[in-house]
């Protein structure tokens, strides 16, 4: 009887260990799979020419990713520029100032923002942001803009990133011990001074990690961006021009490219770029965040 229970325990241990290991291996499998698939295009062209050329002519076998990379960077940069100050101020208020009543209203609002699917943000962007840009904003700067621009994608993406940033900031800020705040307050510092000189200064690394995570989230976002970015191949010279970020490229062309092996390989290479960026960014920032969490415990 006892032996049976122990065997069961050991068996469960084995199975669970296998499942856990499998999930770790899955990351590797994904990397290898994407690499193998993108190998043909990497053999054909040098890595440098792939990412520095702006000639995208799949039919002629020319694959220059520069427009897409620049598009992704523009959109991501704008999204962070918009979401960072809003999220930071909101998070400071929620951790340093807010009474529980306020939190009761703000948290569900952030929950909703976090829960809404990408495609809904896309719909919102097309109905609200795009017309706003083409009717109100663009006419002050250029003759005509359809509204499907870098700016539209940046705004939509910025809104999508806010809940993630706020929750990470809150996590980081609450790792600062209460005694430090009390010491600062008892010396006569105001709450904002305490936030600025104690909390923010002490959590610089954590804030950086949070921002890097948000950047990697913004870079991979597909459908919402695809719906508002305009999808015109070219390097945007200002934020009122359309762009074509990497995820949009994959989503728009996958399925069509099956007849052309090199084209498929090029799109897999695009996925590989995303994979590598997300992997590196996530590892870096998570390791920093774990350190913070540990030092707190």
């Amino acid at each position, binding site marked *: 009887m006892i032996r049976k229970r122990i065997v069961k325990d050991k068996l469960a241990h084995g199975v669970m260990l296998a499942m856990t290991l499998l999930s770790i291996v899955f990351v590797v499998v*994904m990397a290898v799979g994407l690499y193998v698939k993108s190998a043909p295009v990497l053999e054909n062209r040098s890595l440098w020419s792939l990412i520095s050329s702006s000639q995208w002519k799949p039919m002629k076998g020319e694959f220059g990713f520069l427009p897409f990379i620049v598009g992704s960077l523009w959109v991501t940069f704008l999204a962070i520029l918009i979401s960072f100050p809003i999220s930071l101020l909101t998070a400071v208020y929620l951790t340093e100032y807010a009474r529980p009543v306020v939190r009761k209203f703000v948290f569900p609002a952030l929950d909703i923002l976090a829960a809404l699917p990408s495609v*809904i943000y896309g719909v919102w962007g097309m109905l609200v942001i795009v017309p706003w840009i083409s009717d109100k904003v663009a006419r002050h700067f250029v003759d005509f803009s359809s509204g499907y621009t870098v700016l539209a994608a940046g705004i939509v993406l910025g809104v999508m990133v*806010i809940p993630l940033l706020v929750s990470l900031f809150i996590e980081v800020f609450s790792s600062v011990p209460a005694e430090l705040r009390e010491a600062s307050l008892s010396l006569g510092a105001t709450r904002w001074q305490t936030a600025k000189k104690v909390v923010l200064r002490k959590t610089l690394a954590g804030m950086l990690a949070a921002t890097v995570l948000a950047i990697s989230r913004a870079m991979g976002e597909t459908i919402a961006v695809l719906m508002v970015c305009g999808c015109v191949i070219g390097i945007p010279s200002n934020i009122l021009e359309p762009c074509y970020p990497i995820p949009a490229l994959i989503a728009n062309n*996958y399925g069509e490219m099956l007849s052309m092996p090199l084209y498929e390989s090029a799109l897999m290479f695009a996925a590989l770029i*995303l994979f590598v960026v997300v992997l590196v960014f996530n590892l870096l920032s998570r390791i920093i965040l774990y350190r913070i969490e540990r030092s707190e415990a």
Partner: protein
Amino acid sequence: MKVSRSKRTEEILFKVLMWIAMGIVFGFVISVIWTVFSRGAKAMSWDMITKLPGGGFYIGKEGGFLNAIVGSLYIVGASTILGLLVSIPVVFFLNVYLKKDSRLAYVARLAFDVLFGMPSIVYGAFGFTIMIFFGLRTSLLGGIIVITLLIIPIFIRSMDEATRNFPRDILDASYALGATRWETLKVVVRQIAPGIATATLLSIGRAIGDAASVMFTAGYTDSIPTSLSQPAATLPLAVFFQLSSPIPEVQDRAYAAALVLTIIVLLLSISGRFITNRFSKNKL
């Protein structure tokens, strides 16, 4: 007293800025919800959610998007069950079988963080490659597999969070009574049940709203799939594809589908909050 005045001005200035920031957040929430509801309500009708696309649906004739609703439910239902089956043991393993400072647990958590952050388009592209490798075509099965892979990290991360705060004494009490670790699972599962429930709602929300991963794996069809090898339509893709049509009637259906999707997601999110609040109150 000049210093103190500037101190106070700065304090007030930043307090105002914080209020503005939160106002903007609320503004965004209200704007998104209002847009989807007002535009969707105009286009909504009973036919939309009870009928399949009829002949000439895509030139604005009769029919609804029942195919997408059912397809989404099939995919989400199956992958939620599969996801739970994989993630409960993993979470249990990380928190009970492994010691607190275990190296393996650290690496595993990092791996799940990376998978959690992976964009769904990468899952989609990778999933598609795998399917081709195994000779599968776009199908319900493909969609289920990719969505399962997509939500497992979400499941694990949020359940892990709930389990980490779980009192160790209960484990010790169970061991002291002679239970093996496997038998202690029952105790743990009961303790973290609210955590599992919230994690499930969160995962369903992500699973039902994700478009990029099912685009190439589940495909799209006008009928309800009757077997795993047939393609399946999904709600987010119903919004996406119909919105790209130039015909206003077809676009209207996209807005109606967006409304349905939003209502589902909002309900999930609200009940998740409710469960968290309800049970965290009782815990103390």
